[in-house]
């Protein structure tokens, strides 16, 4: 186990620092660890594995959509692929990656020795492989995996769902419990374990964004649990929450789901906002512009995220007063988001810029996430949304905010903090290659989707009319390129863990923060005594 070997040697160096025996050996180390660094590592490895799995499903989707006609899979299986791709990416790749980053970096950033509740932390992690084992096993059950989209609207998912739907619900519950426990841990850690002198308004941005994200998780994951429980009851216990024949309403499902679903997408981006707010100042060698407004903007975004959910439902027949309210509220979210973008640009302006891999990803994040934000603003215009809704225009929008948004944010963070985690510099040339191939592949894959949506191509279809053929082919080529490139990332990470140029405590001369005061790799136990923060 080369990975554990490296971490163990890292620990051996610091043996003098503490009077314990260091981490256990072998598999029980990983099963029983309560160390935030170990747990962070496990979350990151798990999330990358899920990213590759969800990505493989995307490859199946794009392979089928490469040309018109049904060549590779049947529509029933195609619907399983789109559903599972969404579920795995949202709940298995993006969210756990951010929790992994939180685990590794929050204690270091606030000068705490570990998370507030280390044993619960272990349990939070190990619930995830269990949940995803259940979810992925549905592919092999009779009737196949869930096939009703990651948004699982009733009654398609209740009355007409496959037998595996109950297992899907079970997996969602387990994964939800993991998220909730993780969020509680983050809040307790941030509120209680900050080093003396670190007031709230002195906290680094990544800590702020995670604090707010954790509150969002506490608020909405239980609502998700509620809605899947209602589904379970409708399917198995004869209730009629969402069934008109029993006095229920399918639209109620959509309200409850999106009440969770909209804050969920902010859960998936706020930590990236935080990370990028560390990286850009570091590589601009200039302090973050407008710290206070950045904090208030994140707070405003989080609050507003609770009152915009029905912009996912503009075509269900909500009365006009409701449509107008949700349109105005959704347009309003553009204001604090715009403030953040302006602040990042102002941080770069008149800085002293270098473009190592973390900065490349961070700059691409700002540009491409903003493009995703623009298409989001267009979608907010309710009358126009009648032409965009459930087309590839929406698919383009959310892939722009999630891929160059969340995913590039995660890549940027990984490159930024890999030296701290492993003690080695990653291979900069390979990393830049990873960046450029990802950037080109991603744009080739998703930019044409704007055109497809505007030209009239609906979502979630395995076959399409001939006028959509050319852009679909381009998109598939870009997707294959993007997918293949992620194997390069795997190579880069493994190579970095095994060896490379020795990394100093602060490999980035413009970086600020307590995490850069400990050596690289970070010792197994850090900040046994809290530092003074001025």
């Amino acid at each position, binding site marked *: 186990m080369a990975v554990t070997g490296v971490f163990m040697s890292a620990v051996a160096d610091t043996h003098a620092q503490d009077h314990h025996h260091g981490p256990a050996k072998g598999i029980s180390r990983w099963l029983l660890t309560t160390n935030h660094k170990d747990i962070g590592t496990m979350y990151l490895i798990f999330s990358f594995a899920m990213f590759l799995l969800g990505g493989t499903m995307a490859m199946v989707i794009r392979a089928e959509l490469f040309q018109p*006609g049904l060549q590779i899979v049947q529509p029933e299986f195609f619907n399983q692929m789109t559903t599972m791709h969404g579920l795995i990416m949202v709940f298995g790749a993006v969210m756990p990656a951010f929790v992994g980053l939180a685990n590794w970096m929050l204690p270091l950033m606030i000068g705490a020795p570990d998370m507030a509740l280390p044993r619960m932390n272990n349990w939070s992690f190990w619930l995830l492989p269990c949940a995803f084992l259940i979810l992925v096993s549905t592919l092999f059950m009779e009737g196949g995996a869930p096939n009703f989209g990651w948004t699982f609207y009733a009654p*398609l998912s209740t009355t007409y769902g496959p037998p595996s739907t109950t297992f899907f619900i079970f997996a969602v519950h387990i994964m939800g419990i993991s998220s909730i426990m993780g969020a509680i841990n983050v809040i307790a850690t941030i509120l209680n374990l900050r080093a003396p002198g670190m007031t709230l308004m002195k906290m680094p941005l990544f800590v702020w964004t995670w604090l707010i994200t954790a509150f969002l998780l506490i608020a909405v994951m239980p609502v998700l649990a509620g809605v899947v429980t209602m589904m379970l009851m409708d399917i198995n216990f004869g209730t009629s929450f969402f069934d008109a024949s029993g006095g229920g309403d399918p639209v109620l499902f959509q309200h409850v789901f999106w009440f969770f679903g909209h804050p969920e997408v902010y859960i998936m981006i706020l930590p990236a906002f935080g990370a990028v707010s560390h990286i850009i100042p570091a590589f601009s060698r200039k*302090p973050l512009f407008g710290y206070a407004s950045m904090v208030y903007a994140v707070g405003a975004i989080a609050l507003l995220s609770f009152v915009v959910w029905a912009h996912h439902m503009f075509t269900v027949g909500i009365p006009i007063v409701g449509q107008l309210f949700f349109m105005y509220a959704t347009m309003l979210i553009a204001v604090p988001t715009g403030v953040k973008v302006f602040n990042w640009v*102002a941080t*770069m302006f008149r800085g002293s*810029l270098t*473009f190592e891999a973390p900065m490349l990803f961070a700059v691409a994040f700002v540009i491409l996430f903003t493009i995703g934000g623009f298409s989001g603003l267009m979608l907010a215009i309710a009358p126009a949304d*009648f*032409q965009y809704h459930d*087309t590839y225009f929406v698919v383009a929008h959310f892939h722009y905010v999630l891929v160059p948004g969340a995913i590039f944010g995660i890549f940027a963070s990984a490159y930024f903090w890999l030296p701290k985690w492993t003690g080695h510099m990653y291979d900069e040339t390979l990393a830049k290659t990873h960046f450029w191939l990802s950037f080109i592949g991603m744009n080739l894959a998703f930019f044409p989707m704007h055109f497809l949506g505007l030209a009239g191509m609906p979502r979630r279809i395995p076959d399409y009319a001939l006028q959509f053929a050319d852009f679909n082919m381009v998109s598939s080529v870009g997707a294959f390129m993007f997918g293949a490139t992620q194997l390069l990332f795997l190579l880069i990470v493994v190579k970095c863990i095994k060896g490379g140029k020795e990394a100093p405590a602060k490999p980035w001369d413009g970086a600020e923060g307590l995490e850069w005061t400990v050596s690289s790799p970070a010792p197994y136990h850090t900040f046994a005594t809290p530092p003074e923060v001025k």
Partner: protein
Amino acid sequence: MRVHAQRAGALLGGLMFPAWSMADWTLNMTPGVTGTSNEIFSLHMTILWICVVIGVVVFGVMFWSIFAHRKSQGAKPANFHENTLVEILWTIIPFVILVVMAIPATATLVDMYDTTESEVDIKVTGYQWKWQYEYINEDFGYFSNLSTPRDQIENRQAKGENYLLEVDNPLVIPVGKKVRFLLTANDVIHSWWVPDFGVKKDAIPGFINETWTRVDEPGIYRGQCTELCGKDHGFMPVVVEAVPEEEYNAWVAEKKEAAERERQLTQKDWTMAELMERGEKAYQTACAACHQADGSGAPPAFPALKGSPIATQDMAAHIDIVVNGKSGTSMQAFGNQLSEVDLAAVITYERNAWGNNTGEMVTPKEIFDYKNQQ
């Protein structure tokens, strides 16, 4: 207020590059053929241009920094990290832009929601995986199924021009009239979308939704289901033929008649006695001239029906000769001359009158089905 907002919207839309610049590429949304679709297109172009301008400014500053503020070029970092005035400005200005954008958007939405004063009402029902259209004031309806052959989908045959966007029975509506759609679904949620009309509305089982359109130009317009509804979600297109009013009225009359006939056939349970009574009348009118009132005919030119093999043995042959006639003889094809009711009645009569007494009867529905099979 609404008028002012509409005028403001038109002005804003008109100031932005008009439809001609993008309409012919597949890069952009279609302006469509209705007032709504054109208003939506204007809103779309307006917000797009606002975003482009903001993007150019913001990315411009960023690219400038990337170029001019590189450490490798000797740039030294400044130290500023706040500027309250600038921050207030770049909060207020976007807010104002949004308010300005919201005004025409509100006007268009109000317009889209106004389903009053419609002239034609059509109920649209989404099924897995087809649409049903019912003209509720005219008492007829039909299903509309994808008509692209399976062979094309499975790549055994070259794909036609309207691959996946063609149906057996399109919806037909009149041009220039306000058509109101009432949408529901039979099983799961579907969504009915015609991009050229700017119309999309979810079809929800157990509930009725409303929307409307007024099409300015005759033509055939194609759309698709836009809510995941199961395995053939991608295979239930929407095709609408907008035709001039007279053509529409003629088509409606034809459909109503056909529906009435169909109703007569399927809803009525014809008894033997009823068919015999009607059949005798029909026989007198259409057949007696050659085959005589007592069925004895005038052989060899006009065979007897009384005691004949045709009228007493194989039913299918009997139906065939009455409906299709017999070439080379004087026996005409009565399939187009008599209604299904009369055809069934006459055949029933022939099989039981004059001592033929087979006890067999044919229903109008059976004749209807027989004719459709041919």
